[in-house]
């Protein structure tokens, strides 16, 4: 894009315009994604709790986030008297900037990346690891003990979960041999059995473990100890109101999408559909193919985000000691074992066994997914007399 713009204007202006366009597209994407995910979260939680969720604003309540946004912007932006005002004010923006900067290196398709970074995985992990700073600062600067507890918990939890998360990232890196996210996606072209998650049992386990640790890293339930409302009022954002409060949630949904994108690129074939026998960019031209690629990538990421929501509304919150114990006593040794295991697998295994494993894992997962999907259509029981229909309703 810079080269194309450089024909019309000086090079420095072309670089600035290209950077501005990329940043603008990413900001709008993050905003829109958060808009829809917040609606989705409320719908998912509603359905899981046998309610309808938002229905009033717009079709299916789709504009609920807009109504929420208007409400939040018009709310008074207060800061408590005992707070460190400067830190209190910048904390939400620190959190958001960190999770937004990760999008710079995430490719949405072959060549669809704001700035190709040769060590993309490492860059994204590094940038996402700075998000915790905003949350901690919010907890500290609020001048409230509930916020302080939330911030301390967040720091302990996120710093601990970074270790198994990074070790899980190394497992596919051992197979792919690159840290470049675009190259990672390109290597998983072809059938879905070529996806790294199905490459061997260790990568399959690493995918699950990465997803769990990434959920914890985004402070999502069941790991949302930083805002445990049953214990800490609202944790680190107790004292926040209005726009700044919503920026925290923008950051949370952005980082959920970012870690899902990382998981999709490393384990789930990136922007490849997994069944098309050709490359979309070669068949439909660059823009058509890239649109398909980006749609597939965003679709896969959204699927993972929906799974995170599903987990949030299904599982009870862990205690803080359970959270730390799960990380340090179980996830850390397991991820070390996976790293050793994938090394042995890559070095000493007969290629034929590797091929069969791919097919077994790939098609097994597909069949399992289809089975779960089919189970949605089995007839449900009938509601008892004089009861509302609810979960017993026939579909």
């Amino acid at each position, binding site marked *: 894009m810079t080269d194309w713009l450089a024909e019309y204007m000086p090079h420095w202006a072309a670089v600035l315009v290209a950077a501005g366009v990329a940043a603008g597209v990413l900001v709008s994407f993050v905003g829109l994604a958060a808009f829809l995910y917040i609606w989705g979260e409320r719908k998912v939680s509603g359905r899981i709790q046998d309610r309808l969720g938002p229905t009033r604003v717009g079709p299916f309540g789709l504009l609920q986030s807009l109504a929420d946004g208007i409400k939040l912007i018009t709310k008074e932006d207060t800061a408590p008297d005992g707070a*460190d005002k400067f830190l209190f004010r910048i904390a939400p923006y620190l959190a958001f900037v960190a999770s937004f900067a990760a999008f710079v290196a995430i490719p949405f398709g072959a060549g669809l990346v704001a700035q190709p970074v040769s060590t993309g995985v490492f860059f994204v992990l590094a940038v996402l690891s700075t998000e915790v700073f905003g949350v901690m600062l919010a907890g500290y600067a609020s001048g409230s003990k509930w916020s302080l507890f939330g911030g301390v918990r967040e*720091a302990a939890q996120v*710093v601990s979960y970074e270790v198994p998360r990074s070790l899980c990232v190394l497992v596919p890196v051992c197979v792919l041999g690159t840290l470049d996210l675009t190259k990672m996606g390109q290597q998983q072209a072809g059938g879905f059995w070529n996806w790294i998650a199905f490459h061997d049992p260790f990568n399959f386990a690493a995918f699950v473990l990465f997803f769990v640790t990434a959920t914890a890293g985004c402070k999502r339930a069941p790991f949302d100890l930083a805002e445990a409302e049953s214990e800490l009022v609202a944790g680190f954002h107790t004292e926040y109101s209005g726009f700044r409060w919503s920026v925290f949630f923008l950051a949370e949904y952005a980082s959920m999408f970012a870690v899902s994108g990382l998981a999709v690129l490393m384990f789930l074939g990136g922007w490849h559909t997994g069944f098309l026998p050709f490359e979309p960019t070669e068949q439909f031209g660059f823009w058509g193919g890239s649109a398909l690629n980006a749609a597939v990538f965003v679709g896969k990421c959204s699927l993972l985000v929906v799974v995170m929501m599903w987990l949030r509304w299904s599982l009870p919150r862990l205690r803080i000691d359970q959270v730390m114990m799960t990380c340090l006593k179980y996830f850390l040794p397991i991820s070390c074992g996976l790293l050793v295991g994938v090394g042995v697998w890559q070095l000493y295994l007969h290629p034929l066994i590797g091929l069969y494993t791919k097919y077994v894992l790939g098609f097994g997962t597909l069949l399992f997914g289809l089975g779960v999907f089919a189970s949605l259509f089995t007839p449900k029981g009938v509601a008892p007399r004089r009861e509302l229909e609810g979960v017993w309703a026939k579909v």
Partner: protein
Amino acid sequence: MNLTVVLFAVLAAVTAASAVGVAASRSVVRAAVWLLFTLIGVSGLYFLLGAEFLGAAQLIVYVGGTMVLMVFGVMITNQGPFAVLRTKPVEWAVGGVLAGGLFVLLATASLNLVSSGKTTDDPLPGISPIGLSFLGVEDGGRSYLLPFEVVSVHLLVVLVAAAYLARAKRRVSQVASGKEQGTNKEDTRQEQGVTP
């Protein structure tokens, strides 16, 4: 005056201004936030130079690790609401002299580098040649893997030892010598570091 120079000037100004903020602010956590901006500015300079790995490593080690632990420590240990440092005039003088000396040293070193013409515009090789030469794949099979591993295992031993020294002391001695508990209660308390 091209874009790189302008970007360098902006990043360097942000880095330097935040560094002054670190020295000038009294609140520990505010100083930490200024230091955060300094470190982000330095990693921005690395990115500007094309050293992506170094920039990301700067972020993950200092911002995601060290700074978080520092603020975490302040949050855990602080008695009042906000920790404040009072700098004595002597400390200002010593710190100022040290900083000035370091600045002169670095400035002369970098100016010498410019005048000796050692600056090159070679495209940076990235991280993979370094990794391969660690493994001895390139560079005629001369491997640096063993010294690297020795250093890393040494670091691990140091970390385990630090965790061992810093762990909460159990009341093993009291259970073992239950009779003496009444007589030298103060001594055992002092040993265990428990403040009454």
